[in-house]
């Protein structure tokens, strides 16, 4: 087991609850809470990496994650307010938040190149997992057309972030 495995496991555990445990699928209020929690987790990891990352490309990537995911959350919050939907915390959103906290604690204990590698590895897994959740759970279950459209609209950003993270991951090796 390498050093990054616990990070990856915590991310997978958090988002893994999206599929089998929710056979009926989340409702729109729950989806809203999941979206906000997922973005917040990455914003918080990014803020930590902005301060701690050793490599300038990793720091730039972290800055971009904070900016882009804050943008998604802003749009999501504006939409739920417009739709008069109150985000409803659920097992998935809570697990995401908890998984994010576990990841941050582990990252805080690392420094230098070990931090960079762990952060970027986690970003690759995180974006892969969120993309899977978007495609299999969140987009198919969104019933409000505007909420579904927002999820579809943000999807390419997750694809770009994943490719960007993979590129940095390869450079760090």
């Amino acid at each position, binding site marked *: 087991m390498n050093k990054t495995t616990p990070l990856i496991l915590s991310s997978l555990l958090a988002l893994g609850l999206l599929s089998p445990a929710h056979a009926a699928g989340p409702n729109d209020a729950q989806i809203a809470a999941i979206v906000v929690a997922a973005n917040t987790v990455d914003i918080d990891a990014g803020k930590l990496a902005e301060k701690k990352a050793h490599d300038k490309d990793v720091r730039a990537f972290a800055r*971009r994650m904070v*900016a*882009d995911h804050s*943008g*998604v959350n802003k*749009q999501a919050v504006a939409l739920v307010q417009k739709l008069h939907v109150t985000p409803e915390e659920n097992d998935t959103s809570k697990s995401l938040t908890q998984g994010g906290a576990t990841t941050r604690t582990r990252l805080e204990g690392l420094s230098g190149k070990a931090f960079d590698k762990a952060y970027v590895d986690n970003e690759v897994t995180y974006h892969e997992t969120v993309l899977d959740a978007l495609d299999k759970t969140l987009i198919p279950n969104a019933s409000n057309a505007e909420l579904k459209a927002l999820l579809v*609209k*943000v999807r*390419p*950003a997750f*694809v*770009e972030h994943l*490719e*960007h993270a993979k*590129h940095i991951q390869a450079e760090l090796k």
Partner: protein
Amino acid sequence: MKTLLIAALWLPLLAGAAEHRVVIDAMQFSPQVVEVKPGDTIVWENRDMFVHNVTGAAAGVSSGDLAPGKTWRYKVRAGASFDYLCTLHPTMKGRVDIAKPPKHAPTR
């Protein structure tokens, strides 16, 4: 006579500088390749919900950051075609293909 004919054929190109639009949306430049000629203008329009930029370092082309809803106009100079990208999202790439003037340009 031949020179006059070539000049006549080339004149509409000189007179009609065109405007080309490139839409930035869903983490892509569309169209990805824009074919232009010197004197034309390219307008990049950011319709995405994220900040982007248009940067062709080798050609000295830089829009600076374009917030959602912003546009950037660039007048094409004679020179080599160039690739560009969004430095904030480096997987977003595009190209400006600049047509070369005919070899026997008219002289007056």
